[in-house]
């Protein structure tokens, strides 16, 4: 269709300005025009000249017409010498456009004349088909041609393929051509040894398409050698597909794990390091997500060009917003409740209700639309699995946040003071550390990280006032499972929970899988009440 519009414009131009030399040249290069030259009574030589001309265009779309010519399906209409691909339909012929393949209705058989062919013409067509696409200058085009030939499995193309393989220099294209040849060989009447070799080649390709091809072949063939080879190849491919299915599960699991990690990592600071049960943690995540929403709204209204940068702008802002709320919470509430974990739990739960209702009042109860920048959308294939960019970026982002936090804890003065205060508050105070200030900063850091997580989660989850609630239980379980006070534990905990969850899903379904995971964690906590990586020594109960 998109070719039709310039063509129309061109005809318009021709009508308006008369046939100029440039227009004529372009019209000659158009395959649709060349194909029409098959029309009318022609000598074989003239037909061959048209074939050569078509091959010279390098346009893959002429392949349909050429193949029809070879198979004797190319006709021209007596009334206007227009050329069509036609198939018999009852007493009549159904005709198709030779380039687009679009149906052009039915005509009585008397109206059509076959474009005459003989063996030398057929050979010329086969050669043209080969050179046309398989010998194109552009490797991407050769690759496409090989892929098309693979699905077509046309035994006639073995010869051109062999020639193309011999001439091919690009290894990837060559491999694809060999696969195409193998598929053609399976469909041909070559000896069984060749077919067995072809089955091996297909086993190397190992995707679902070659699997169906081999299964069809193994069902149809009578030759034991070929069938054995095909069956071996089928098993190999099935194993390969199973492997990639597992890989896909691992990938989904890691993706879920990174979401859990993001949600839990701030909690690993406030709960894990400080021992504060912050039930409002999920709301910090939610605030981060809403910050992203506000930033995007602002950009949409004021500077649409910056949209690709919206997440980068939202990150520091989300950190500041959630961090500030965390700071206020710590100073105004939590510091009065140190040493009373159950009371802290209740008070912070109250804060979470207030924050939820506040957001609901300001932004309304419904989901808010947060857009994905271009670099976050789309997907690509790795082997047989598909990887979406937003999941990939979130995994990367989660790991970056994790490493940054690790660096802050281990390599900065604040981190040093934080660890000192957690390990021995009085000694730290005696060394001149302002413990209340460190408490406040630690809590603000944990909350700020939650805000950053909110920016990432806004890309894959609904931004609603309930966003945080859905993560809070999972986050606590991750931290408790991984072991309190241990960032690495949180990483391992999040990832293993994610993977286990995704591996259970195919067997148990999403909800039951989640329940099983919850029950497993409950049982695990029975066995190891202090988590996967428990702190040891005298600080355990401090």
């Amino acid at each position, binding site marked *: 269709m998109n070719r039709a519009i310039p063509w129309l414009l061109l005809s318009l131009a021709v009508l308006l300005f008369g046939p100029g030399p440039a227009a004529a040249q372009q019209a000659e290069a158009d395959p649709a025009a060349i194909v029409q030259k098959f029309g009318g009574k022609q000598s074989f030589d003239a037909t061959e000249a048209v074939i050569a001309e078509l091959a010279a265009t390098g346009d893959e779309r002429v392949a349909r017409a050429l193949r029809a010519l070879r198979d004797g399906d190319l006709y021209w209409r007596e009334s206007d010498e227009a050329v069509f691909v036609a198939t018999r339909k009852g007493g009549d012929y159904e005709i198709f456009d030779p380039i687009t393949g679009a149906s052009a209705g039915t005509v009585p058989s008397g109206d059509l004349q076959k474009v005459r062919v003989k063996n030398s013409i057929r050979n010329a067509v086969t050669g043209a088909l080969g050179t046309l696409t398989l010998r194109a200058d552009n490797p991407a085009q050769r690759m496409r041609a090989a892929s098309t030939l693979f699905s077509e499995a046309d035994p006639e193309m073995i010869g051109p393929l062999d020639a193309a393989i011999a001439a091919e220099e690009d290894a990837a294209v060559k491999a694809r051509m060999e696969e195409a040849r193998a598929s053609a060989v399976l469909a041909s009447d070559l000896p069984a040894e060749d077919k067995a070799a072809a089955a091996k080649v297909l086993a190397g390709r190992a995707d679902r398409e070659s699997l169906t091809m081999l299964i069809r072949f193994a069902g149809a063939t009578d030759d034991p050698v070929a069938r054995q080879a095909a069956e071996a190849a089928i098993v190999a491919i099935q194993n390969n597909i199973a492997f990639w299915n597992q890989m896909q599960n691992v990938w989904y699991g890691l993706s879920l794990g990174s979401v859990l990690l993001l949600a839990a990592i701030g909690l690993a600071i406030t709960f894990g390091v400080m021992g504060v049960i912050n039930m409002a943690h999920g709301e910090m995540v939610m605030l981060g997500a809403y910050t992203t929403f506000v930033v995007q709204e602002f950009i949409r209204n004021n500077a649409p060009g910056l949209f690709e940068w919206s997440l980068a702008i939202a990150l520091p802002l989300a950190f500041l917003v959630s961090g500030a709320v965390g700071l206020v919470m710590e100073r105004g509430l939590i510091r009065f409740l140190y040493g009373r974990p159950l009371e802290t739990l*209740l008070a912070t739960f109250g804060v979470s209700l207030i924050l939820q209702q506040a957001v609901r009042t300001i932004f309304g109860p419904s989901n808010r639309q947060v857009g994905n920048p271009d670099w976050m959308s789309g997907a690509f294939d790795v082997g047989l699995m598909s990887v979406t960019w937003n999941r990939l970026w979130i995994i990367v982002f989660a790991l970056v946040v994790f490493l940054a936090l690790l660096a802050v804890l281990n390599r900065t003065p604040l981190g040093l003071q934080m660890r000192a205060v957690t390990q021995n508050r009085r000694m730290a105070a005696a060394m001149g550390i302002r413990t209340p200030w460190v408490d406040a900063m630690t809590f603000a850091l944990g909350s700020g990280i939650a805000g950053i997580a909110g920016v990432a989660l806004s890309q894959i989850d609904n931004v609603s006032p309930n966003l945080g609630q859905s993560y809070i239980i999972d986050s606590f379980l991750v931290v408790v499972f991984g072991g309190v006070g241990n960032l690495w534990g949180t990483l391992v905990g999040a990832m293993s929970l994610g993977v286990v969850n995704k591996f259970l899903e195919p067997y148990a379904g999403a909800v039951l899988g989640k329940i099983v995971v919850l029950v497993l964690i409950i049982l695990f906590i*029975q066995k190891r009440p202090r988590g996967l990586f428990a702190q040891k020594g005298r600080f355990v109960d401090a």
Partner: protein
Amino acid sequence: MILARFLGPRVWILVAVILAAAVLVPMANLGLPRDHPLHVPSYAVQLWGRFVCYALLALALDLVWGYVGILSLGHGAFFALGGYAMGMYLMRQIGARGGYGNPVLPDFMVSLNWKELPWYWYGFDQFWFACLMVVLVPGLLAFVFGFFAFRSRVTGVYLSIITQAMTYALLLAFFRNDMGFGGNNGLTDFKDILGFPIQAVSTRAALFAASCVALAIGVLLVGWITRSKLGKLMIAVRDAESRTRFIGWRPEYVKLFAFTVSGVMAGVAGALYVPQVGIINPGEFSPLNSIEVVIWAAVGGRGTLIGPVLGALLVNYGKTIFTTVWPETWLFLLGGLFVFVTLLLPRGIVGTIDHGFDAFRATRRARDAEKGEAAGAVPNPAE
């Protein structure tokens, strides 16, 4: 009676008030004409009947939180399980009157194309069996859960979080259609209970009275447990678990006992609640519900018998008023209540009043003692 002295006058006053309500409210609802100034409208009977069930639930939580120091964030699960057991009985009572007219299968099973009643629905056509299950199912869950949790010494916030995870897991499970509990919609459209139409005003009044009686029994039971030797042990476990263990007691059994009794009480509360509201759905398992129970007990005063009852009634009455008059503010208020109570009123209303009295008495005794000392009497330091 020994129990009379044992419990102290305040508990008896509470029980007397509850029992009086059990008699007088239905009388005022059914016996007095509509325009009589003391007439209690039917909607109020239903409303307060629900609140009484909540009070029993809060009391159950108080037994473990106030007296043994176990903060359960999953008591809503026991409540809901008791409710489901009762709901299953009520479903079976519908019989052929359901939308599909199937004499055995409840409507939702017919629409799921089930041919047979699942085995766990057997017996629920008998009231006694349902009552047994109301006690057994929550009790068993509490026992098994508590057995594993307390044996491996899961304490404090860890326990709170896994109780929350427990109710969350049940929430997810009961949402599933193929669990056979009506999925998302739960069990509803009840027709009658023990042959009485469930919508009738008199049935409602009777359910109110039954709830009050259950609450009174609950108060007596918790009072009796907490004032017995075992109760002393519970408080010892709450205040110094390790020390209690070193002396030679087994805190895990004390906790397990309290947790199981508490689970059963919560189940009974749920069973009385369901016929009064006419529906039970998985929403009752939501963690928010369980944590709201905690705030009822906290507002009233944990570690007291009157506190949770008072707290449940007050907070729920407030909730009813605010959610009808000004729905936006309720969550602000509830959140604020959490913050306010933990920060400024950690003992709750009853606890604070008690504490005030104690402090007042202590100062007066100290003053008396000073005077007495001047007169040569032996000082009697108050603690």
